[in-house]
């Protein structure tokens, strides 16, 4: 199935968890937050979060600004 992660389309296996996807995407271990379909998923829930087809994943971190 296909999901969108930070604006990029990715094909993943149906059983893949959010934690797997984030690891494959090279997400840093600290200082990031993840939202799936517009809702924040706390870090502790990543390993047991299943993604639906067409899910939208956003990974944000702090950058220079303001």
């Amino acid at each position, binding site marked *: 199935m296909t999901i969108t992660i930070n604006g990029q389309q990715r094909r993943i296996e149906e059983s893949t968890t959010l934690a797997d996807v984030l690891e494959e995407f090279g997400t840093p271990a600290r*200082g990031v937050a993840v939202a799936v379909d517009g809702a924040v998923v706390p870090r502790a829930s990543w390993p047991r979060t299943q993604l639906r087809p067409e899910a939208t994943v956003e990974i944000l*971190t*702090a*950058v*220079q600004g303001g």
Partner: protein
Amino acid sequence: MDDPLVIAGREFGSRLIAGTGGATNLAALERALIASGTELTTVAMRRSDTEGGTGVLELLNKLGIEALPNTAGCRTAAEAVLTAQMAREALGTHWVKLEVVADEDTLLPDPTELLDAAEQLVDQGFVVLAYTNDDPVLSWRLEEIGCAAVMPLGSPIGTGLGIRNPHNIEMIVSRASVPVVLDAGIGTASDAALAMELGCDAVLLATAITRAREPERMAAAMRSGVDAGRLASQAGRVPQRFWAQASSPGRPME
């Protein structure tokens, strides 16, 4: 701490809140932040694969400066609320500089989206520092909703046009019971001093320092400007007069 800035019960020794945007590199930013004396500094939230994003939190941490995440770039209440929630998750702070702008050219706050987002975030337990227009009524509404500070603009973000409507800022200050932070439009040290003389509790600026020819020197100037303005506002200035008034007594030959 002598004359601290108090926001939501937290004390800060510096009345200069800095931004980190616009700095050419982290080393220049570090020197500027140290020279500014700031204890609270904004960061933005962006996709983790955005270039140039890394290192700013580590820098603030090293300098003992509190990071204040903002919702810069958000156009709707929904976007701003989600961004604030993600900042809380990523940074472990429930403080947020709420920024909801209407369009790219003006970067002016969108009042209806701003009020909507502020209300939701206050309900969710955030300490909301709201970037707002220099509109006294909107500022009072934001305070009523429960914002911890209101941050009216002096002029649009990044313009360096200073404080275009000082009287509005004075009206905002005159009724506010939460801190008023002059945010956006500061171009040089006298603008920062004026903000404080008008009664603001603090000044937030980024561009004026980070894009100055010598950011470190300008940061020191801003620090002095804020301090001078604060002292002047507390000292009680002389009333303005139409005619001259000699400061020396009489004339020598009388």
